[in-house]
């Protein structure tokens, strides 16, 4: 597996921390899956409740890498300011950069994304940009300083899987040395396996696990699928063919007509 700004991960599963039925189930999902990265966010804190403090302790206890996001940001300024606040709180250069451009699909505003990525990279951030499979945008993100690209599989929270296999395969082929993560849209473990079989280095998901009937079991299922897909890729799969080819040797077959 390629590294992420010099960090080698134990596995290719990055798991979100939102929407779980309870903090205990969140922790159990991480324990059973062994996910190597937890994505987190920033929201307004109340001086009375201080709810964020308990959550932060829970995340620290997981013992995983923390990837803060700029979820919900719609402008470059908003995303850059949020990234600075996240770097101070989480004490990491990593930032999952989201600049949302369209409300129905939560599609990234790739123009704002490239600009924000350049600003943050020049300021020492290690940017994980949530992008599309567009190769031109990908190239501009790399020139802006990104060493990781995170194309969507499908719209966030949709569970539709890999909507554009051709585009995602092209991205892998086009950038053989870049760490690639499928971010968003996965609904089933088989889709995660398919992403890893394409040669992607990791998958990042949240809703598929958190909204499953048994989130911890689903997290483990995704971890197993990620491992299976990765091994399948490394093992150099056969080329598909249009016509049948008998796998059992015909030489020596009895003549029984």
């Amino acid at each position, binding site marked *: 597996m390629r590294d992420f700004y010099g960090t080698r991960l134990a596995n290719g599963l990055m798991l979100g921390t939102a929407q779980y039925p309870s903090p205990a189930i969140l922790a159990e999902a991480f324990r059973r899956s062994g996910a190597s990265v937890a994505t*987190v*966010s920033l929201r307004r*804190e109340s001086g009375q409740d*201080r709810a*964020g403090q308990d959550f932060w302790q829970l995340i620290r206890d997981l013992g995983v890498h923390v990837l803060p996001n700029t*979820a919900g940001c719609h402008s470059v300024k908003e995303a850059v300011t949020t990234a600075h606040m996240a770097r101070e709180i989480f004490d990491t250069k990593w930032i999952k950069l989201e600049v949302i451009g369209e409300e129905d699909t939560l599609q990234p505003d790739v123009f704002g994304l490239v600009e924000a990525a350049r600003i943050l990279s020049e300021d020492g951030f290690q940017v994980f940009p949530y992008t599309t499979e567009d190769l031109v945008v990908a190239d501009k993100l790399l020139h802006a300083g990104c060493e990781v690209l995170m194309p969507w599989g499908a719209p966030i*929270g949709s569970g539709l899987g890999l909507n554009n296999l051709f585009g995602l395969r092209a991205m892998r082929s086009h950038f053989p040395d870049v760490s690639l993560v499928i971010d968003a849209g996965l609904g089933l473990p088989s889709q995660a396996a398919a992403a890893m079989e394409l040669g992607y280095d990791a998958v990042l*998901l949240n809703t598929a696990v958190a909204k499953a009937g048994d989130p911890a079991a689903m997290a483990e299922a995704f971890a197993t699928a990620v491992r299976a897909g990765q091994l399948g890729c490394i093992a150099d799969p056969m080329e598909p063919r249009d016509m049948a080819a008998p796998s059992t040797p015909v030489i020596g077959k009895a003549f029984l007509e």
Partner: protein
Amino acid sequence: MRLQLNGASIDTQAATLSALLQAEGFGDAKVATAVNGTFVPALERADHALNPGDAIEVLAPMQGG
């Protein structure tokens, strides 16, 4: 003076950002701050004077995907 704290209008006697955090119960909480849309690092809060009408954001770790 009157200002906005996380979108709510409040009256405060606090002259600086760090004094405001103390007065509003944040104490030693793990938070990040911005004033009028600009990030203010923790080390600069004590020197950051507040003005009437300032919009202060105090953010903390939360669940995210």
